[in-house]
Structure formats: structure tokens, C-alpha cells
């Protein structure tokens, strides 16, 4: 069965510092991977996605993620964090069987940004 693990429940970084949020997945074939962000009182917003091709994908708000098949990882990075990046971040894997778009989400990582 597919699964997604986000090892860090909570991370605190200083504004301007770099950020890396970890995501590990379990999936038998080539996964379809996503990062979503959820700000308080708002719906989930797609940051970026990986299907195939270049393993480094760029997203919105200056985020990027790198797919590493050998490590079963899809870590999210940002070179310089802004206070407005404080939110909850979810990694997700998409099922490829049955041609559906349903997602399996990780537990989430809460990002706190210190001034």
C-alpha cells in the first residue's frame, strides 16, 4: 500500500533562513508527488507537483522540491523563508491505478517562522 511519511511534525526557522521539509513515500511504481500548503482558515493550495522528467521541480512562492528515487524522498526547499510562509505543509502521493486523482497525504509539518 502506498504511504507518505513526513518525519518532522513541527519546524521553526528564522525569517530569511533556508528551509527543507522532508517527505518520504512508499510506492511500487513511479509516484506522482505533490506538496500542498494550508494556511489557517484557508483551503489547501498546491505548491508544486512531480510526474516525470526533471527531478527538480519549481513551484509557486519560491518553493522547489527534488525527487530522489534512490531515497524515496521528495523534500521541499526554499532558500529564504518569509514570515508569511508560516503554515502547515502536506506532502501527498497520487494513485496511478484506476486513473483516479485521489491523494494519500502525509501527516503534515507545521512551519513556524521567527522574526
Amino acid at each position: 500500500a502506498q504511504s507518505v511519511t513526513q518525519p518532522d511534525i513541527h519546524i521553526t526557522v528564522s525569517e530569511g533562513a533556508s528551509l527543507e521539509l522532508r517527505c518520504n513515500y512508499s510506492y511500487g511504481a513511479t509516484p506522482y508527488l505533490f506538496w500542498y500548503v494550508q494556511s489557517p482558515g484557508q483551503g489547501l493550495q498546491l505548491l508544486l507537483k512531480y510526474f516525470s522528467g526533471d527531478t527538480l521541480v519549481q513551484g509557486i512562492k519560491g518553493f522547489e522540491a527534488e525527487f530522489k528515487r534512490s531515497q524515496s524522498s521528495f523534500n521541499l526547499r526554499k532558500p529564504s523563508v518569509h514570515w508569511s510562509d508560516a503554515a502547515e505543509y502536506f506532502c501527498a502521493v497520487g494513485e496511478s491505478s484506476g486513473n483516479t486523482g485521489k491523494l494519500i497525504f502525509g501527516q503534515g509539518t507545521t512551519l513556524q517562522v521567527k522574526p
Partner: protein
Amino acid sequence: GAGVSQTPSNKVTEKGKYVELRCDPISGHTALYWYRQSLGQGPEFLIYFQGTGAADDSGLPNDRFFAVRPEGSVSTLKIQRTERGDSAVYLCASSLNTVVGSPLHFGNGTRLTVT
């Protein structure tokens, strides 16, 4: 244009009561998904519709949960004989189609509290 709209935003009900949660997807989106997000967890898939039919209801926890989408647009998630364990945020998402990777657009959710 308008995003995914969910009503009500908050619902408090007593144990044993019946509730209905409504989702109004983005116009033209054929696929509609329901997820449930418990406190401190990532969203969990419940059911998805392609058009009017429930294409995959494998995530519904038991037969107290039911969802409809009679005209292929608005969907209603129905919960009978609510239990305290049903308390969660219920998220609705829509996408243009069900091809894997077709971006999901999430609503802000309905927070259900069963007392």
C-alpha cells in the same frame, strides 16, 4: 472565478443527529472529492465522483456516511447517527477531470463538532 465553496463553515451537532454538508465545486469541473481531516492529521480520502456517479467510495468509514451528486455539480455528504469520533474538518475538492495529476482545488472545509 469562484473557487470551491463549502457550507456551512462550522457545524455543531449532538451525538446521534443527522447532518448534511454541502460542496459547490468550480464550474465545469467533472471530478469532485471528499476528504476528512482530523486534528493533527493529513486529509484522508473518503469518496470521489466523476460526474454524477460515485466512482470510488472506498474511503467512507462505514454505512453511516453517504454522499450524492445528483446533477453532476453540487455534492452533499450525509452523516447519519453522528458520533463524537466524526468530529473533524470535512474538505471538498474538485478537478477538471480524474486524470492523475489534474490539480485539486480545495474548499475551506466544514468543521464538524459532535457533542
